[in-house]
């Protein structure tokens, strides 16, 4: 079978043919399957694989990656747990890019696209990257990263002349000046996507944005931090092929503010994706002339009430992606269902809880979901915070939304009594109906999903790979029932549940595809010893023991915040990591402490 000569022409087909065929396989799981067929195909995949995503950077080492994929062109790495996006993880938890950047600088000569997500990046890393790969780097994404400053970006701006995409969205960047953008503007004329949305960089000069628009004739997408929109007249006039714009700021300088001045703004003709920060009712009409062209709309950071949403959405029949807060209300969802038949992705975030701050009617419930299910049949992604929910609404979703791949529901605690609990039957019909579902989040409250409901989740989530469960179940029995199902579940996150360490350990052992587990809020034992039941080779277990952290509350006052313990467990071929801070405790150490 492994005879070298015979393999060259198995069935009359030389390796070259396989190499050409394999090039058509892009899906990582297909590539994975191919590489397991035989050694020869493993070798072919090895030399031809273009992209690798490492879902957790600690599961392997840069050297291992190099040994296998020397011709890699594109790499995506993720570090901190998702909970970091909600301020639940210590800043210095880990996820350092340095070892990876060092190896990239040394070895990966074909690499031209890099995506770091929730990782710690330093200026030194950026300098090394710019020096070693600056000539060839086309895509650089520092996605929700931290640890670097605009000095690091200076190196990128100066050296990466072929950069087509620079993505910095939501990264925490120490701002020392605005020269990085100027350098980028001077040295680059191929930029297509520039994104520093939600980075709060204040020293950005609109003149540099104009310069970029002038030099980069292929500029298609620009998302920026808060820069007065009126200053961007020149930019919009020059960026003639721009399709996407996000950010800016409306009304920051009251002395220049008058809604008329915004009405004189004219946008590029191909603009079909828009999000204007602090846009209010008075400025909304500036969007009307091209609203019918809009395919993506970001209202997360706008000052619109429910009525405004209805007025605007009504004019956007081609909308495919909408992001907004729950101020859209059930009525807004009804308008969406009537008007936006092409809607694929809908994200509704939690707005202000405080009374009087937001539109009183701006709440989303089962009523809106039922309308949505019947009206927007193309939906693939729904993320929604609701104040009320029924089984029927979940059943509607299961019945109508057959293209749904990603469903996330959070039940807010604003309303004390939810009439139609538990949601066992609703979630069953949803999971049975939405057979394409790969990602599922269900964050409820005590009593909203029984142990039987959890068993349904286990039984009917056949394709789900990622799950976030919050405040579900009644006892360990529920978790154990869940873990008998979920055949494809790779990543499980749980919060505010009542499960014991013992049940968590058994569940981790039972779930056949599980490779990553994160839990916060569970019945801890004195010594975490029950968790050791899931100890096994290649399975790293880390604890973040309960902490008290001083942080500012909603009023800006310093308060002490309780952070209950976390468990993080994952498969790794790299052994226990050594770069953990003192807030993180690998379980081996705990075991040692107690002997």
């Amino acid at each position, binding site marked *: 079978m492994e005879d070298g000569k015979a393999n060259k022409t198995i069935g009359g087909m030389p390796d070259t043919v396989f190499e050409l065929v394999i090039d058509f396989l892009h899906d990582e799981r297909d590539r994975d399957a191919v590489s397991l067929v035989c050694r020869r195909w493993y070798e072919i995949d090895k030399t031809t694989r273009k992209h690798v995503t490492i879902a957790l950077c600690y599961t392997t080492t840069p050297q291992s990656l190099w040994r296998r994929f020397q011709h890699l062109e594109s790499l995506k790495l993720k570090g901190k747990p998702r909970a970091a*996006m*909600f*301020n*639940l993880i210590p800043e210095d938890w880990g996820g350092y890019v340095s070892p990876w950047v060092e190896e990239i600088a040394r070895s990966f000569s074909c690499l031209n696209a890099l995506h770091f997500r929730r990782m710690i990046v330093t200026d030194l890393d950026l300098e090394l990257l710019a020096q070693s790969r600056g000539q060839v780097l086309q895509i650089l994404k520092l996605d929700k990263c931290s640890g670097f400053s605009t000095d690091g970006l200076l190196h990128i701006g100066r050296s990466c002349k072929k950069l087509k995409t620079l993505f910095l969205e*939501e990264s925490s960047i120490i701002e020392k000046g605005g020269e990085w953008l100027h350098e980028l503007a001077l040295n680059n004329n191929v930029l297509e996507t520039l994104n520093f949305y*939600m980075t*709060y960089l204040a020293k950005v000069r609109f003149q540099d944005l104009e310069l970029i628009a002038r030099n980069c004739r292929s500029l298609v997408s620009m998302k920026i931090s808060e820069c007065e929109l009126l200053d961007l007249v020149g930019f919009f006039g020059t960026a003639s092929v721009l399709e996407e714009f996000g950010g800016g700021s409306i009304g920051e300088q009251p002395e220049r503010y008058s809604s008329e001045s915004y009405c004189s703004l004219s946008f590029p003709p191909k603009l079909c994706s828009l999000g204007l920060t*602090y846009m209010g009712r008075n400025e909304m009409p500036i969007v009307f002339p091209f609203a019918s062209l809009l395919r993506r709309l970001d209202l*997360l*950071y706008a*000052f619109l009430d429910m009525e405004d949403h209805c007025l605007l959405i009504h004019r956007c029949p081609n909308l495919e992606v909408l992001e907004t*807060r729950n101020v859209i209300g059930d009525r807004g969802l009804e308008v969406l269902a009537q008007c936006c038949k092409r809607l694929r992705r809908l994200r509704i*975030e*939690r*707005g*202000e809880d405080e009374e009087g*701050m937001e539109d009183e009617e701006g709440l989303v419930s089962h009523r809106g979901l039922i309308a949505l299910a019947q009206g927007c049949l193309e939906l693939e992604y729904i993320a929604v915070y609701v104040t009320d929910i029924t089984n029927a609404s979940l059943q509607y979703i299961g019945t109508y939304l057959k293209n749904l791949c990603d469903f996330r529901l*959070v039940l*807010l*605690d604003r309303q004390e009594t939810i009439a139609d609990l538990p949601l066992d039957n609703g979630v069953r019909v949803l999971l049975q109906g939405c057979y394409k579902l790969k990602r599922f989040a269900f*964050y409820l*409250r*005590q009593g909203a999903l029984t142990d039987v409901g959890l068993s349904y989740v286990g039984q009917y989530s056949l394709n789900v790979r990622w799950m976030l469960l919050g*405040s579900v179940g009644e006892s360990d029995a529920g978790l154990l029932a869940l873990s008998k199902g979920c055949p494809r579940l790779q990543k499980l996150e749980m*919060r*505010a*549940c*009542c499960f014991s360490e013992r049940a968590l350990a058994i569940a981790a052992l039972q779930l056949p595809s599980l490779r990553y587990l994160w839990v*916060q*809020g*569970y*019945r801890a034992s*004195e*010594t*975490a010893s029950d968790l050791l039941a899931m100890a096994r080779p290649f399975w790293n277990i880390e604890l973040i*023991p*309960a902490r*008290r952290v*001083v942080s500012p509350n*909603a009023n*800006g006052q*310093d*308060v*002490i915040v*309780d952070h*209950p313990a976390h468990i993080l467990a994952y498969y790794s071929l790299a052994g226990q990591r050594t770069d953990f801070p003192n807030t993180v405790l690998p379980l081996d150490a*705990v075991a040692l*402490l*107690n002997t």
Partner: protein
Amino acid sequence: MSRSAVELDFFRMEKESAGKPQPPKKLFDRRRSFRDIQSVISKMNPEILKSVIATGSVENGNLLASKPKNDDPFLSPALPLLSAPAFGNRVSGTSPLTIFYEGTVSVFDVSRNKAENILKLAAENVSKTVDSDLPLTRGKSLERFLQKRKER
């Protein structure tokens, strides 16, 4: 003013803390509702509560509980110091129940009977993670936006 106080000193915190720097007591919370009391008590380790209440009794004077076997300082959370006047204010019927817990001070106005009942209830309480312990948190950008909106 002499007041008989029942002090349940879990793990001799007073003695120990004498040598250590105290964390700043930034939170002073005067609450009245039963739900609030229950939420504070639910944060305490019920095993510890049970053992202390079992070995001691609510009477005049101080009550010192013995240290548990496993007192790994890293893993055992700091525990509350419970103080309730044995004979409360007879005129109004209620007196303050003070709970010192890891740098916070919570004061509840309850009758003596209620105070005893609360302690008994806490002992019986199954250790379920109360939802209020783990509030929903927002994404950073959204939080910042909502903050900014208040200022505008």
